[in-house]
């Protein structure tokens, strides 16, 4: 029997005085949907704490989309921090929704955001705390139907046993259709299996239980998922794609939190998709095509949102905001309208060229914090391999321009472990930083008082599904550490600060990115060993993952560092973002030759296949500002 829907807040409140940040659990924020009358109830869960999940624009979009439907209510849910989760278990309190403090297990539908691989143990933790059977196959007729969606669905196999259905691609229409279907069929007394079969007939919906894993000579050890005979499920599930962003609500974010959030500001999505074609980047493939929101709509939404919500900052978010064809005009107009009210306009990242610096100047005005660029690789050869269409001249011109305009602190993002990387590429990373620093000293002057400094942040490359580098091995742990040491020993200037990502976290991330459905055993075992909040540095415990891997017989280093041949059938090929495998193979070969591929929004079609496959097109409102 499903748990009854009732308000558990009186049971939760006595715990609030005993936990860190009790405001995470309060609800009653400005703009939250108070009326939750249903009769159909959905709960959207971000599997991390409130302060991390609440700013997620995806949750905001889905929350509004469902609540707009007649007869449907949608609440939010987040994972309680470890102190509260432990107390709730002690007191016998299940995972609760935020708005009405109802048990998550009492809802008709529960949806999870798959934000990144490292959240997988948090999903197990959330289901367990909710009292919902962890595996979809163990759920009874009356249990909630558990959905997933989000940016990390592109190798969903290792988490797929937990979900009844997974939505690929844009969710604003698809999720409403899924909820409507569950409501209608449940209303007619349909069985759970009938509901799942019907869900599988919706565009973009993958129902894992209707697929079986087959291992063969053409697959990896993890096999491939194929429809069970007679299931009627499609061989390949293609993503949902909203063709016109301007037809969507430009202001889905309506809730003003009390807690200081990771991103505590109004966010307006100015475009979806990026066609720059960086070969390591999953989002660059899976969010195609590029769909801009017209400037007029962005400006109106920002001004309306600020007035309605009271934020003092608006962020124009996307994968590459400065690529928006109307970026300069948009920023200029917003700044002119808002600066007197003490409102800041921000953009999440800058293009590595003078236009990027100009846009940073536009948003920063006279206030100069640090400026961040992402060359990603130290040598031109390797930047060509990864298709980061940025030259030495671009980096130097952008740096000079930034120092001349008043910036003093520069942050540069790089990766190590990229395919074809050599020690020469590693040593070149601090050399790039040194050149930028030297330009700063030349423009501003030497000495501590000049304030010129450069910091470099170095991530470890993780091969991701549906990217041209999906066949690449990850560097072995020992080799990552050797290269990190080489990087440090090659950095000689005290004004260059180096930080790098934890190699062990990157290893686990790579394993979760590469394994198939059988990888769920590892996730479950890791959670049983106490893993949760693995994306939090102070919570991540590699030894627990190692113990879990031993227990289920998985050699994590072997999984992560195994190269894959181009013709092998991969565990995620039954789910498709619309980009063809042929394009990815071609890009892999071009990478090996160091040949770059241009951005189709600035030149012509590069043949990725997404537009003809999904029946969509790039939507660009002006002329894109090519370098």
């Amino acid at each position, binding site marked *: 029997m499903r748990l009854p829907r009732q308000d558990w*807040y009186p049971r939760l*409140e*006595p715990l*609030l*005085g005993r936990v860190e*940040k*009790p*405001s995470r659990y*309060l*609800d*009653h*924020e*400005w703009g939250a949907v108070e009326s939750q009358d249903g009769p159909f109830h959905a709960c959207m869960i971000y599997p991390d704490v409130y302060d991390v999940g609440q700013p997620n624009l995806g949750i905001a979009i889905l929350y509004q989309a469902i609540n707009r439907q007649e007869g449907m209510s949608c609440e939010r849910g987040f994972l309680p921090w470890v102190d509260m989760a432990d107390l709730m278990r002690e007191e016998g309190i299940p995972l609760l929704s935020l708005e009405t403090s109802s048990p998550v297990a009492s809802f008709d539908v529960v949806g999870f955001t798959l934000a990144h691989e490292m959240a997988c143990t948090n999903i197990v933790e959330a289901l367990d705390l909710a009292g919902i059977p962890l595996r979809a196959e163990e759920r009874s007729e009356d249990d909630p139907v558990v959905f997933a969606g989000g940016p990390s669905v592109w190798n969903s196999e290792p988490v797929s046993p937990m979900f009844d259905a997974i939505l690929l691609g844009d969710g604003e229409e698809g999720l409403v259709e899924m909820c409507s279907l569950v409501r209608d069929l449940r209303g007619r007394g349909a069985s759970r299996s009938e509901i799942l079969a019907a869900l599988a007939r919706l565009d973009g919906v993958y129902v894992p239980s209707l697929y079986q894993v087959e291992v063969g000579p053409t697959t990896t050890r993890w096999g491939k998922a194929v429809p069970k005979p007679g299931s009627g499920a499609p061989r390949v599930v293609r993503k949902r794609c909203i063709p016109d962003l301007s037809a969507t609500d430009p202001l889905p974010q309506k809730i*003003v939190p*009390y*807690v*200081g959030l990771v991103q*505590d500001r109004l966010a307006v999505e100015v475009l979806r998709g990026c066609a720059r074609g960086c070969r390591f980047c999953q989002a660059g493939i899976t969010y195609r095509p590029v769909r801009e929101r017209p400037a007029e709509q962005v400006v109106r939404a920002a001004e309306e949102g*600020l*007035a*309605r*919500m*009271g*934020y*003092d900052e608006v962020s124009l978010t996307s994968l590459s905001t400065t690529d928006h064809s109307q970026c300069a005009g948009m920023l200029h107009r917003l700044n002119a309208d808002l600066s*007197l*009210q*003490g409102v*800041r306009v921000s953009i999440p990242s800058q293009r590595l060229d003078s236009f990027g610096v100009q846009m940073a100047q536009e948003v920063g005005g006279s*206030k100069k914090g640090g400026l961040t660029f992402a060359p990603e690789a130290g040598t031109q050869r390797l930047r060509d391999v990864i298709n980061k269409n940025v030259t030495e001249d671009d980096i130097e011109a952008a740096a000079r321009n930034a120092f001349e305009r008043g910036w003093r602190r520069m942050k540069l993002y790089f990766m190590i472990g990229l395919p074809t990387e050599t020690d020469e590429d590693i040593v070149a990373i601090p050399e790039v930083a040194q050149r930028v620093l030297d330009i700063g000293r030349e423009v501003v002057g030497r000495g501590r008082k000049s304030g010129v400094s450069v910091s470099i942040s170095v991530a470890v490359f993780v091969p991701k599904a549906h990217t041209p580098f999906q066949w690449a091995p990850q560097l072995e742990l020992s080799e990552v550490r050797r290269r990190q040491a080489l990087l440090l020993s090659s950095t000689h200037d005290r004004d260059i600060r180096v930080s790098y990502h934890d190699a062990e976290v990157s290893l686990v991330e790579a394993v979760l990115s590469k394994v198939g459905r059988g990888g769920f055993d590892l996730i479950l075992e890791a959670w049983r060993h106490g893993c949760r909040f693995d994306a939090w540095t102070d919570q991540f415990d590699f030894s627990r993952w190692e113990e879990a891997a031993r227990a289920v017989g998985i050699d994590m280093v072997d999984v992560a560092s195994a190269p894959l041949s181009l013709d092998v059938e991969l565990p995620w090929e039954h789910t498709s973002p619309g980009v063809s495998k042929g394009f990815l193979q071609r890009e892999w070969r071009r990478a090996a030759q160091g040949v770059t591929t241009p951005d189709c929004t600035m030149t012509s079609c590069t043949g990725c296949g997404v537009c003809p496959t999904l029946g969509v097109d790039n939507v660009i409102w002006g002329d894109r500002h090519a370098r």
Partner: protein
Amino acid sequence: MPGREQLHRLRVEYGKDGRLAYLGHLEVINTMGRCIRRSGLPFSVGNGFARRIRLQFSQALPVGASSRCEYYDLLLTERVGEKDALCRLGDATPGGLAPLRCGYVPRELPALEAWLTRSAWEVSFSQGVDRAALDDALRQLLNRGSLEYLRGEKRKVVDLTQTLVGWGWGEPGVLTLQTRATNQASLRPAVLLSAAQGVLGREVPSYSVCRVGLWHEGVDGSLVEGLGTRSE
């Protein structure tokens, strides 16, 4: 833009109630900033790096404590009628932090935090409490002079002779406390009750805390309420 001397200092009294009693002081500050922006009042913005609203708050209320008398001072570039200002703020503020009264005060008054130092609290016990034993424990603490406690990992010392002004019993099961904040420390009711439990050797019943009064204390000991010094 008017110069600082032309700005109007609007003092707003607000409550902190219900679930929102669990907001921390910084969370209240951020929330109020957003309420003020939503209200459309002609607020003044500082010239610092972050260009914040010119806004000052009375002393922090402990997380979990509710209140009937918190204050903030907001500098406005234009004088707006008090009734209108209260109405606009009320429409833009969550119920648990609702503005109760407002009025203009002289620009030259000291900052709220330093000016309003005397508090009255009601501690409501969920069950019957042994009043005589608790009185005795409080007297023993007061006789010791100071009280040491840990806040996080920091050791704090409060001089009870300065900060604990008095106590008594109001409604059944309601302990009333009068406290004073000094430059060195302020006394939180929960800290006092925790120390009293130590003296008693047993736990007191669970309780809730509400600040019911906040005043300026004159050199002669007279008390002036937050909105007691209005400008014309």
